[in-house]
């Protein structure tokens, strides 16, 4: 049986329209053989978590540059827990100051990729982590 394709939801919470990063990541993940769903702009936490559920996503990539991450990410993670979706890998990027990173990791965001992160690094991270999670779940 061929290995099931990794499904990733790329989502933009917050009101900002800076979608360059989100679209580049979506395309890089797709070029690496993953199935990528991009939500489009200005999604509420509820919309994002619903989409992840509907799409049966293995991973959710959040991109935000408006500075509202410390309000919106905790809400998203809360909804992830309420829906028992802890097996979904959540990673994020955008304008996120270093000082906020420990708290975001604490609430369950697996990795924060600051501006200038290489595409290769992000692709590899998603591939490795999702595969590892799948092995863990099937064993």
């Amino acid at each position, binding site marked *: 049986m061929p290995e099931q394709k990794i499904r990733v939801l790329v989502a933009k919470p*917050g*009101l*900002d*329209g*800076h*979608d*360059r990063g989100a*679209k*580049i990541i979506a*395309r*890089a993940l797709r070029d690496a053989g993953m199935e990528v769903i*991009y939500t*489009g*702009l*200005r999604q*509420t936490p509820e919309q994002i978590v619903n989409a992840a559920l509907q799409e049966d996503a293995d991973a959710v990539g959040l991109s935000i540059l*408006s*500075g*509202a991450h*410390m*309000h*919106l990410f905790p809400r998203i993670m809360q909804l992830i827990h309420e829906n028992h979706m802890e097996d979904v890998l959540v990673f994020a990027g955008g*304008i996120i*100051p*270093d*000082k906020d990173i420990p708290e975001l990791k604490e609430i369950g965001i697996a990795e924060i990729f*600051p*501006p*200038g992160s*290489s*595409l*290769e690094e992000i692709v590899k991270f998603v591939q490795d982590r999702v595969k590892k999670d799948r092995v863990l779940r099937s064993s």
Partner: protein
Amino acid sequence: MKALDKDLPGPQATERTFTTISGFPIKELYTEEDLAGFDPQRDLGEPGEFPYTRGVYRNMYRGRLWTMRQFAGFGAAEDTNLRFKYLLERGQTGLSVAFDYPTLFGYDSDHPLSYGEVGRCGVAIDSLADMEALFHGIRLDQVTTSMTTNAPAAIIWAMYLVTAEKQGANWKDLSGTIQNDILKEYIAQKTYIFPPRPSMRIIMDILHFATANVPRWNTISISGYHIREAGSTAIQELAFTLRDGIEYVEHGVRAGLDVDAFAPRLSFFFDIHNDFFEEIAKLRAARRIWARVMQERFGARNPRSLLCRIHSQTAGVSLTAQQPYNNVVRVAIQALAAVLGGTQSLHTNSLDETLALPTEQSVTLALRTQQIIAYESGVPNTADPLGGSYFVETLTNEMENSCREYFKRIDEMGGMIEAIERGYPQREIQDASYQFARALDRKEKIIVGVNEFVMEEEPPMDILVIDDSVFHSQCAKLKKLRAGRDNARVEACLAQLQRAADGTDNLMSPILECVRSYATLGEMCDALRSVFGEYREPLFD
């Protein structure tokens, strides 16, 4: 010597391809041959003369330096008012307002979608009361103000006009700019509210109103900045921006305006990226193309209609979070390119802007960068110092040719609105930004401190923090406002606005009445949303 030789470009180096940051091929040497067919009389002219390649004014910066205009806005109106006064005291010569996301989208601070966004990326403006606080102690007939507002531009501008009126100023003496360029919102920045066609109608209403009542106001700042920041090449930025300009002029003419009555109040806004000569050529080409287009396509006769007056901003997208002090150097080089390109006003980014809004110290350094170029470098002493350079003139020519190819393609689609609806400029930008990201991954392009000369540990920087107190105070202000105003009058004004939107009357008068009644931005935008609907971006793969 041997060790040094290794680093000098030798035979291997010539096998590499040399391109601008936009991927434009560059030759080893440019000579007279590259300018075969170039006619200095026709293609350059004198500064201040057609086709304005060398600048829009005869003596350029000798007559007047460019306006040093730092974009600023955060927190509540009172916070930004203090920053404005700080900048004016330090020699800044014009104001430029950044609004927060709820304001840009026409939501009040207490709207659910405003959660976490109030006062964060700009100043929060909910009603006339906030606008009055924003300019408290600043005479609006004594400064020029640029306001980066697009979808709700008519409303924000009306608030500014009423604030000026309350200060006792005459609208005829007001000067400034509203960005009011909705086309690039669909293309790049994505802060739209209404669909393209009603949005164009609002813009035409603004043009009519300004031409009759606020004649010194710059009604549209046709912007390439956001197109470039979204990842376009320099040529795409140039082409899409000027083609947006053509679209506005076409609509204005179709709406019955005399081209020479409103075209002089159009201005342009470009991004100044890292590639020094490409950026200089871009500004020179922009002026020549615009002058020619205004004559060829629209038969403009007023010389002021032909002028591509430019505001520039150094490229936010070029700043790096890694080794942020390197950004000071990038900004200085970019600012120099803007000046050599003949800009009319300039914003220099602060070194910490990839991390947060700038601190007072970093914004002062950014302003000082402009002042050093202005007063120490000697660059402003003569107009268009690079005019006649084989390289710069060739690049300028090539920019114009590539730009005209884009015009042709967009014309064939039926115009810019049709091109946007088909996702054409959006897709071009997406492709370019992806190619650039790949080139960085492969190290075909180098960014110092990011994919080369990387350092592991970096000392943290102090950055500006916006706390939640702004959100709470804005919500409290709104509650008080709604309780204290004449709500029957507000309702009547909003109903009148809705009727005007449903019909064909100019929207500015009913908007001004709403503003005077202290209707909120969100209430006015809701009235318009109920008639025009909201735009949802189709996803283009």
